[in-house]
């Protein structure tokens, strides 16, 4: 009964990510899209917080948003997605929580 959390705003703009991390359950996934991929920038406060999440949780990001923003996605264990993979992921989890 795991949840896929979708984050679309930068961690420096809204509390989407910080609130999501507080209520993340073991086995959950997080998808970063749009400005939210800023959270993956190596050395940032958000990236440090992400390194501390439970190891059973997986981190994903939309590849095009990562590439566009010159983010080095090698620094974190993150799986990059295209849109078909994103859709497949939404179906794979029990529910989706979109933190708009």
């Amino acid at each position, binding site marked *: 009964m795991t*949840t896929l959390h979708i984050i679309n705003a930068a961690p420096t703009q809204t509390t989407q990510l910080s609130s999501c991390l*507080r*209520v*993340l359950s073991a086995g959950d996934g997080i998808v970063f899209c749009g400005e939210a991929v800023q959270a993956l920038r190596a050395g940032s406060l958000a990236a440090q917080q992400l390194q501390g999440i439970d190891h059973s949780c997986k981190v994903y990001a939309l590849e095009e948003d990562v590439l566009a923003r010159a983010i080095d996605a090698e620094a974190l264990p993150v799986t990059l997605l295209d849109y078909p993979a994103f859709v497949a992921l939404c179906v794979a989890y029990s529910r989706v*929580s*979109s*933190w708009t």
Partner: protein
Amino acid sequence: MAKSVLLISRQAPWAGIGAAEALDIALAAGAFDLPLSILFMDDGVLQLLDQQQPQALEQKDLSANLQALPMFGIEQLYVAQHCLTVRGLADNPLALTAERVDDQRIQQLIRQHDYVMTL
């Protein structure tokens, strides 16, 4: 059986239409007898502040509307205690009877519902 929904209301009542839209969804669900719970989180906890005077901004009284939720059969109401605390409202009286919940309880709430909807 109808699928259950956890509605997470995260916006302040004076900051745009998010809070009012969340309430509309809840009232519609209640009118059609759908099982829906509401969790007030982040700035959404400010919706529960007592003694608001929205008339000063010529706005509708959302806190009066919220009181109608139990009449519409929406009785599973929760508020994130941490979000009250960081806003200096840990011990404030609330305008609505809502269960104060910690992070662990929120994790459970998310897992207990079929759908999660955030506004």
